[in-house]
């Protein structure tokens, strides 16, 4: 990544390959945000002994996410779908190993959460006998996040939907979409949601979870499909196995404007915009989380 060392304009970080993919299991697709990659990978891992516990963002009351250690496919499916608000998944890293007794943990998180996890692995000061048990990290693309009440404002005030009625929230085609259990769909221009973003996101330059084993998101692939970066050998192995065994169907990523092109554009937009913010804060003498 090396954000402020010149090569930051590398949009995606290191990876071995990128594909478009989606889960074949209908149960997953019914609940998942996009191609159900995250849930499918975790379920495959749990069912085949590669993982014995995964940290996910479960749905709580009124769309408030709660981190959870899931140990069964059912629990993974329950937690599928994106919550556009902060869910401190990494806060469960230790419980997963201690009271849950897991030896092979899968972690899903936004790029920043993957960075935290990687720092914990590299510098496990407070992580006794833990980091060797992180078996797989799955990153989800992320442009920005919302505080809970920020998301609430967008959903309830801008879109006019009660949170209790929401079944799905999505961002796409320049809009923030809300789907209700009564079958309604409301949307608002993404631009209008900016005032409700988490400001700490504005110093973040990682769009595609550049340090994860696998990173995935919707951008760059058709509706219902996901773009998937295979970054490490571990990540590649599990995806390849899943494809071979029919858990995932894949197709080459569209190299054009609406595929890799847009993905690249968004990644670079995030980097440029937020690097400016970093520079600005530095000028003010404020701390930024980067060292030489």
């Amino acid at each position, binding site marked *: 990544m090396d954000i402020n060392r010149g090569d930051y304009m590398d949009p995606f970080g290191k990876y071995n390959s990128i594909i478009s993919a989606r889960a074949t299991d209908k149960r997953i697709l019914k609940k998942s945000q996009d191609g159900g990659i995250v849930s499918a990978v975790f379920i495959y891992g749990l069912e085949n002994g590669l993982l014995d516990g995964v940290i996910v963002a479960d749905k709580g009351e009124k769309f408030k996410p709660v981190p959870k250690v899931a140990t069964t496919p059912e629990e993974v499916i329950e937690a599928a779908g994106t919550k556009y608000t902060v869910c401190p998944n*990494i806060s469960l890293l230790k419980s997963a190993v201690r009271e849950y007794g897991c030896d092979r943990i899968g972690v899903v998180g936004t790029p920043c*959460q993957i960075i935290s996890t990687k720092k*914990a692995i590299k510098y496990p000061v407070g*992580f006794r006998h833990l980091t060797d048990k992180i078996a797989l990290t799955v990153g989800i693309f992320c442009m920005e996040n919302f505080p*809970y009440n920020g998301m609430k404002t967008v959903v309830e005030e801008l879109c006019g939907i009660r949170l209790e009625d929401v079944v799905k929230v999505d961002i796409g085609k320049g809009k923030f979409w809300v789907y209700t259990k009564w079958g309604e769909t409301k949307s608002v221009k993404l631009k209008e949601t900016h005032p409700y973003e988490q400001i700490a996101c504005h110093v973040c330059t990682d769009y595609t979870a550049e340090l994860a084993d696998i990173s995935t998101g919707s951008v760059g692939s058709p509706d219902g499909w996901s773009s998937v970066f295979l970054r490490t050998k571990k990540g590649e192995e599990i995806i390849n196995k899943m494809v071979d065994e029919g858990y995932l169907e894949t197709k080459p990523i569209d190299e054009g404007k609406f595929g890799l092109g847009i993905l690249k554009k968004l990644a670079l937009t995030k980097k440029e915009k937020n690097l400016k913010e970093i520079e600005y804060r530095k000028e003010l003498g*404020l701390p930024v989380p980067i060292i030489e």
Partner: protein
Amino acid sequence: MVTVAYVQLSGCCGCLISLSDTYEKLIDILNSIDLVYCQTLADAREIPNADIIMVEGAVCLDDHHAMEVAKEVREKGKILVALGACSAIGGITRFCKGGQMPKPVQGSFSALSEVVKCDLAVPGCPPSPELIVNVIIAVLNGDMEYLSPFAKYAESTSTSCGCDLITNVINKSLCMGCGVCTSSCPTRAIEMIEGRPLVSSELCIKCGVCSFQCPRIELPKGVCQLDEE
């Protein structure tokens, strides 16, 4: 072979136990260094000159002997490592205030790094076995890049505590709510509320782990590389 001395001041021995919790690997570690002094594990009674001296525990300023040892380790160690919160940044000894029998006059404890110049200071109560091994290996290999966060801690004189998350992260518009501070805390003093850490001042023992672990305070270079696993 590189000579290593392990010296204990006012600590609890937990940092050494952490090192020994490398279990079967301990023998390999001991074989890769020349442990010239470690009162809890071996019989040498005099601290010799050593390439690396690791010190556990704070310095009791009201104890003549402890003050001498603090001076001695600086003189005798080429690289002086303040290992663990007590030695590096104060930790639980920040709460000491004396008055207890039978030594009512002993009440002032300072981190070793406040008393003599240390080369590296490692927070944690205790630091994990894996981290201690990483530090030893990095010192053996002269990997200053890996060690740079610890070199910084050795220079800083500020007190570490859970409040650092407030002042250095939340107040600075940097907290994105990952939760790694929560899982790192050895006393479970941190809860995530509305995506932000809430530190219980009842439970915080000023070990410095949460703020060390936060990627928004410091993101060492090595973390940002995708190693090929």
